[in-house]
């Protein structure tokens, strides 16, 4: 027995962390592949930029201002993963603050695309007669997604820390390994669109 807020918070959290819909997870993994654990504040900012992006398209879709066909989004999401992975491996080992700023822009922009994906889910949750609570539903759902994202990136940074500390993996090798794995999954997802 729950309130609207906790229910939508839970639904948002579980939606992003659902292992069966792992494309959002893979994107987040790719997004933080070029960061070291001590850069966690930047990753937090990055994830928040992503949240701002997907909150916006989610809002527009739920208000019925724009609507996106599911098939197009399912094509675009793996492309965001591929683009992030390629960007990661094309970066020099030592990046200046300018390059860092680009990451936030990417996260924001790719957030728009992922928000379209979330919107199809949230639309199925909204009921007529609850319009007055729409803002609270959106807020709780987005917060749930944000918490789920933080959990996912925390796991990635923890794994990176273990790889660096215990296995003496170099940061550049870690980036290539994680980005390569993400790109492979994204390619598989893309190929599955045609089969």
């Amino acid at each position: 027995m729950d309130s609207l807020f906790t229910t939508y918070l839970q639904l948002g959290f579980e939606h992003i962390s659902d292992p069966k819909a792992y494309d959002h997870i893979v994107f987040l993994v790719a997004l933080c592949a070029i960061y070291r654990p001590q850069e966690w504040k930047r990753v937090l900012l990055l994830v928040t930029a992503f949240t701002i992006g997907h909150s916006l398209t989610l809002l527009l879709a739920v208000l019925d201002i724009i609507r996106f066909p599911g098939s197009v989004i399912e094509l675009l999401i793996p492309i965001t993963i591929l683009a992030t992975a390629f960007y990661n491996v094309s970066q020099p080992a030592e990046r200046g603050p300018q390059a860092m700023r680009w990451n936030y822009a990417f996260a924001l922009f790719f957030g728009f695309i992922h928000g379209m994906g979330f919107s199809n889910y949230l639309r199925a949750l909204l009921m007529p007669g609850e319009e007055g609570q729409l803002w609270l539903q959106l807020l709780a759902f987005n917060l749930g997604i944000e918490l789920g994202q933080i959990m996912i990136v925390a796991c990635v940074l923890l794994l990176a820390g273990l790889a660096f500390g215990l296995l003496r993996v170099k940061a550049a090798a870690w980036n290539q390994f994680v980005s390569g794995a993400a790109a492979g999954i994204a390619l598989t997802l893309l190929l599955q669109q045609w089969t």
Partner: protein
Amino acid sequence: MAYGEGIVPTHEFHLSRCHINYNVAEEALQMTLHLFLDDLEDAMLREGIDIQFLCTEKEKEDAEKQLYRYLQMHFQLRVNQQAVTYEFVGKEVSDDLLGVWVYLEVKEVDQVSALTISNRLILDLHADQRNITSVLVPPGKQTYLILDRYKSQESLNYAQ
């Protein structure tokens, strides 16, 4: 919705919505349900109900009767500890054509001090099916329930 369970994450989600509202003026419990049509037909098939082509041009003549029969099997209410029978008020297809809105009503309910909801709709079909059920019995606050295979029934108390 395309099926791609286990292999492709297609954002295929297994979700239904149900809103139960006690209309004080009409002394009636009014229910609105949203069910995805493909899941609904599959779940009905599991109960031995032939495909009804709900909300399409091919919809069978007694499709609503069959739907009502399926609902009665898996969606039950107890008001003030008494099992009640709801009427089938109507249905309409959702504007994306993927789902159906179903309207049900229990008449002559002069007060609600306790309400037990059992929502097992479609739960037998998908392990991750969740039936989000919200309940509004004025002057109480709206309550949200996430009903699933592990917990498909909940009792609410409104006694003053």
